């Protein structure tokens, strides 16, 4: 990968030995062995036909030069027609077959990569940016599969060069050094251009990124600029950066514009040399006219492979590192491991933490000896500062993370023994930032229970605030929510996620309450939806709203991974302990008293 190595490394990346890497890549190509054979055959045909053309022409010219005879000339012309057709036909077969092989390898690899990724636990996704995971599955797989095209392309050019080389060597070894000696120079010139081009290109991209950032800022901030009539100031700034980008990119353009003229001039020098040296030999009768012709016309056959070689290594290396990245994604180890796959009956929802220990990092324990019993049907609110362990408790119940010590039981049975997916089907989970998939609101609501009927969903939706929330959706339940739910407001997204759980009728409901503010009318509907769920499930609520805390049967107060107080709102408030402090910090402003006295308080 050269220069950029290490910039996109992830902690699960590993280095495979080259041999293992190639062997593993081969497992993907092996099913297409026959196609690869066909491709190789076609390459041989193309190389042979390509090399044969100048050789045949040279032979006829030889004949013509000797006694002006055009003997074999006509059959040669016929042969050239044949060869032209053959090259094209072989190329056709080769391209068609390799498109199929590459397409299939990409498909297999993508499926394997995503299937593996989907199996990793949430710790994995928490640790790694999702954009990078996606690019490994879609882009790296493609680069991987393209390596084969790249390799065959280069092989065909080298074969052509090799055939010509062998013929030249057999006819006239004396001229070879002139031809070969010239190539390293070409190679070096091409290489140094690449290096120079890379440097100016990087500078050019940076300058362009600056312009783009400035435009983006202007476009997004245009209201502010217009509100305060500052258009002229931001225009001046833009003009300066735009001109700078022009200057830098022009320099890059000049370097790139030089590449081919220089190489062509170099080629001209090579040709001139071969014309002179070859002519010298021909005059002395040391070589034939045909051989001379062949030398001059074969320059190109050596020329292109050498130019391509200067780019080839970095591309193949790119393909190999892409393969490495994909395999690392597939091989990343999961921490959550089930000891058996016991089928899960309908759960009552009794949850027991027994001296549970958990940490994300060995040096920083999150839960130490946590013991907690939540009765079936009970509604429990977890409160505490950030980092007190509220979300951890919820995520452990979902079995998103592996714990290190103690026991975690549901209905008296070890969580590690369950068939995980059967278990999760009985959980209703609402994350803090509700996530919707593109599709309709209805699709999203039945995501966890695809068999739920339209009628059932419709009637549940009507139970929330008499269905008033539906009127804010342009097409009701059939409204397209957009990518990640972007077409809906925060409040609407929360309602849809709550509906998703309502339709699911889970045994255990886990809510990480949203902190975003919602208009009071929608808020009222959210509270109603919440109450409907609380009625029928065991609920674990990471509460951020005073109303939710008050609605719970029991409030569990956490500090640094330990339960320090329990009880209901009134009793905990009268204790005047940590809960009272938390109340003053987080909940005070949500109380009706605060709202009512705002009028006088702010005026102070």
């Amino acid at each position: 990968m050269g220069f950029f190595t290490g910039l996109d490394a992830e902690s699960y990346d590993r280095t495979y030995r080259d041999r293992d890497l190639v062997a593993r890549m081969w497992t993907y190509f092996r099913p297409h062995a026959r196609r690869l054979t066909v491709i190789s055959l076609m390459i041989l045909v193309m190389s042979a036909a390509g090399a044969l053309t100048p050789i045949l022409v040279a032979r006829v010219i030889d004949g013509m030069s000797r006694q002006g005879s055009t003997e074999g000339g006509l059959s040669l012309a016929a042969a050239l027609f044949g060869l032209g057709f053959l090259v094209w036909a072989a190329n056709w077969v080769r391209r068609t077959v390799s498109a199929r092989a590459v397409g299939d390898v990409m498909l297999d690899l993508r499926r394997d990569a995503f299937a593996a990724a989907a199996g990793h636990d949430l710790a994995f996704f928490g640790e790694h940016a999702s954009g990078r995971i996606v690019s490994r599955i879609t882009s790296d797989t493609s680069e991987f599969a393209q390596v084969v095209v790249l390799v065959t392309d280069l092989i065909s050019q080298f074969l052509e060069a090799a055939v010509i080389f062998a013929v030249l060597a057999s006819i006239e070894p004396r001229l070879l050094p002139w031809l070969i000696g010239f190539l390293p120079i070409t190679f070096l010139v091409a290489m140094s251009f690449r290096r120079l081009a890379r440097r100016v290109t990087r500078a050019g991209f940076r300058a362009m990124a600056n312009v783009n950032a400035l435009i983006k800022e202007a476009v997004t901030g245009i209201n502010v600029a217009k509100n305060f009539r500052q258009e002229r100031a931001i225009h001046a700034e833009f003009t300066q950066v735009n001109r700078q980008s022009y200057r830098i990119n022009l320099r890059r353009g000049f370097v790139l514009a030089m590449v081919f003229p220089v190489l062509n001039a170099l080629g001209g020098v090579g040709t001139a040399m071969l014309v002179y040296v070859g002519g010298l030999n021909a005059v002395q009768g040391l070589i034939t006219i045909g051989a001379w012709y062949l030398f001059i016309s074969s320059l190109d056959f050596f020329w292109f492979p050498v130019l391509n070689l200067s780019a080839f290594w970095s591309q193949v290396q790119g393909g190999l590192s892409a393969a490495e990245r994909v395999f690392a994604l597939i091989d990343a180890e999961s921490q959550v491991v089930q000891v058996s796959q016991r089928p899960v009956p309908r759960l009552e929802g009794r949850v027991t933490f027994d001296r549970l220990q958990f940490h994300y990092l060995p040096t920083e324990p999150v839960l130490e000896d946590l013991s907690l019993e939540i009765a079936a049907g009970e509604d429990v609110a977890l409160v505490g500062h950030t980092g007190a362990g509220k979300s951890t408790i919820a995520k452990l119940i979902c079995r998103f993370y592996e714990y290190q010590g103690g026991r975690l039981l549901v209905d008296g049975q070890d969580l590690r023994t369950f068939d995980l997916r059967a278990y999760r089907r009985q959980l209703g989970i609402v994350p803090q930032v509700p996530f919707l998939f593109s599709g309709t609101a209805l699709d999203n609501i039945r995501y966890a229970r695809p068999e739920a009927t339209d009628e059932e969903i419709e009637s549940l939706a009507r139970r929330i605030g008499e269905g008033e929330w539906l009127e804010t959706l342009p097409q009701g339940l059939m409204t397209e929510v957009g990518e990640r739910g972007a077409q809906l407001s925060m409040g609407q997204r929360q309602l849809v996620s709550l509906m998703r759980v309502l339709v699911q009728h889970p045994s255990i409901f886990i809510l990480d309450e949203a902190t975003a503010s919602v208009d009071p009318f929608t808020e009222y509907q959210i509270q109603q939806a919440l109450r409907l769920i609380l009625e029928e499930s065991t609920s674990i609520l990471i509460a951020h709203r005073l109303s939710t805390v008050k609605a719970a049967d029991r409030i569990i107060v956490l500090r640094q991974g330990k339960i320090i107080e329990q009880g209901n709102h009134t009793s905990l408030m009268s204790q005047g302990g940590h809960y009272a402090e938390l109340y003053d910090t987080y909940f005070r402003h949500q109380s009706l008293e605060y709202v009512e006295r705002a009028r006088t308080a702010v005026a102070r």
Partner: protein
Amino acid sequence: MSVAEFVIADAPAVDRSSPLRWIASHVARHGWIVVMLLVGAFGNAALAALVPVYIGQAFNLILGGGAVLGALLQLALLIMGSQVLRGALQLGRNFGAELIGQRLERDIRAELYVSLLGKSMTFHHLQPVGDTMARATNDVREVNLMFNPGLNLVIGSANFLIMPILVAPSFHPALMLTPSLFLVAYGLALWQYLTELRPVTEAQRSAFGEMNAHLAEAVDGIEVVKGAAQEDEEVSRFTANARTFREAFVRQGRVEARFMPLLLLGLATAGAFLHAILLFRQGAIDLGQVVAYVGLINLFGFPTFVSLFAYSQVSLGMASARRILDLINRHTELDQNPSGHAGPMRGEIEFHGVSYSYPGRVRVLEDISFRVAPGQTVAIVGQTGAGKTTLGRLVNRTYDVERGSLRVDGLDVRQWRLGALREQISIIEQDVFLFSRSIADNIAFGRPGASRADIEAAARAAQAHEFILAFHDGYDTLVGERGVTLSGGQRQRLALARAFLTDPRILILDDSTSSIDSATEDQIQQAIFRAARGRTTLIITHRLSQIRWADTIVVLRRGRLAAVGSHDELMRSAPAYRRIFEQYESR
């Protein structure tokens, strides 16, 4: 008459009547570069054609026998010299194209930028930022690439295509036949190929986009996927998308494999050779000319392989030019009314049967009427989509009312001079935008040159002073990508500080921040209350406490006025409003 809100005096005149004319009028300003490009392209091809001619002469020289070494050396030096000169001409062609491309990129970007600054706020609110950005970055870039490599290679290869036809008659007039036939067949084959390829490429690209977008969504929502035990379903959904892509990929491979110009090149080589041999047999040409002619046909190799890419680059560039011009040309009528009323504002606002709908969409506001006395604070509440934000934006004419009238100080807003109206009205949006500069510069944005003392006083009033000082560089702390990230509440308070500094008569505040803790909430309440004091204020809010201290509450429901009045009045008359407060009392 509508006038752009921002123009620059020295803008060059360009023809915007069609994309082609637009590009042409930009190029016309660089006439000498075009000459350099064309001369370079022709000279490059002509000198490339000289090589086989010289080689043919060298063959004749050797075949003729005698003392030829001096002449041979002369030919070799001619080849060398002509090719070095060719390099210079090719550089002229390449760099000419590059120069035009870069200049057009610079100029078009500037033209687009100025035009964006000149467009009304209505335009900017309705035009998605992502779309504008795509045109201002990718499309502008594509126009550059259209010249180099696009047109550079098209013009370059066109000269290579005609050169054999021009040179061949110097050997024998009949030898024009093969290159002419090739030229015609090549043109047809290429045209057919490009027509066939375009939809296939498009299909492959959209299949990839689809696959990528769905995958990204599934990975982002992995917690939901796992929580709902839908992993297998997601994998099979992805596999289906990946398979669709595979089909498109194979289809494109099939089209590319059947590349007819390659066959034509082989046939032309054979045909040229055959023709040359026949003429040689008749004694019409000599061997050197046979060699030269066969070498000349090799010039077709370049156009055969590069044109593919070059033509699609040009068509991409033209499509981009069309998109950019489309954006520049889009009209955004908003009468600036330069001769309108421009006096100081008292801050009275009256809505009389106001209706508004976004172009081509359903009505957002319908028949809204209410009055706000100068200095009053009005809370605007309602569900998402009720029209709260739009209502606020009508006041400073971000949008113009469709029916009914909106008056400020008894004067229809359209009778005000736009500049005077906006200078005295400040809008703080839901997403407060900060520029990537220092905090002090952001606060002083509306009053450049404000003293540090004034800035600090404004920040104090907005309850922002403390958190600003908590940053390492205080007021000089950079905001944005290269600086600190601020929370929604902090951004809002900076925007309030901006407003304190410019002291508008009407403040419209779209407040949807939420406070995690009560202490911050106290500060925000203080800041907003102070900002509202002494000026007319419309607050679009979720906060019950703000609703409680507002003088008037306007309740919107589905674009209509559901209720208006003080808290006590609404508690009596509006059940939906009452319910919100009742649920507290039930606990």
